[in-house]
């Protein structure tokens, strides 16, 4: 039995307001498996704290969180399902 390959999923929520981006993240999370990586793009400034809150609540760590020119990029590793 082979292990399915780790997936890197890009979720583009730019232009969407709270709670849109975190909802898009949740939808991607439900389609993911342990080991996958989800990369969330957003422009709503609330995403910086919301992504940390989502990460804390679900137990999936943030690998990186960067903001430049109003674009926020959060990379999350799925460790718990």
């Amino acid at each position: 039995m082979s292990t399915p390959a780790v997936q890197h999923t890009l979720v583009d929520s730019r232009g969407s307001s709270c709670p849109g981006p975190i909802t898009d993240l949740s939808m991607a999370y439900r389609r993911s498996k342990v080991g996958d990586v989800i990369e969330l793009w957003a422009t709503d400034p609330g995403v910086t704290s919301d992504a940390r809150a989502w990460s804390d609540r679900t137990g999936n760590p943030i690998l990186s969180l960067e903001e430049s020119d109003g674009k926020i990029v959060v990379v999350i590793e799925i460790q718990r399902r």
Partner: protein
Amino acid sequence: MAVTTAPEVEGGPIRQAAGKLSIVMFSGTADKFIPLGILAQAGAAMEMEVHVFVTGFALQAFTKEPGELPFPAEFAALAPAVAQGMAAAHVESWDTMLRQAKELGAKVHACSTMSAVMGLTPGDFSDLVDDVVGAATFLQVADGGETFFI
């Protein structure tokens, strides 16, 4: 903390919900439906089990003939600016947000007593409503989680 399962979405495996949020939706004015939509959707997106108990003046908005939600008189002057701002910020309508929450597992319960008061039968409610229950049932499902009253 009570732990229950949320339904599958697009073939994903059933996972455990992280906490629980229950909202008593009592008010019947348009402004109050904005936090309902946002909190229900945010809670569901935070992987929480979400329950909305619809009662009081909110019930009419969940029927098949909801009519227009009134804006409260004291904020009526702000209504156009709020509508414009919500469109500019791409904030969805309350029912779109609630549907999104339901897609993520949220449940909407209509109050049986208020239904009787308003002369509404289960068949009068829109597809937003999952069931018609009494207050005791709602308290039972809300037990052990956070409960907000709007």
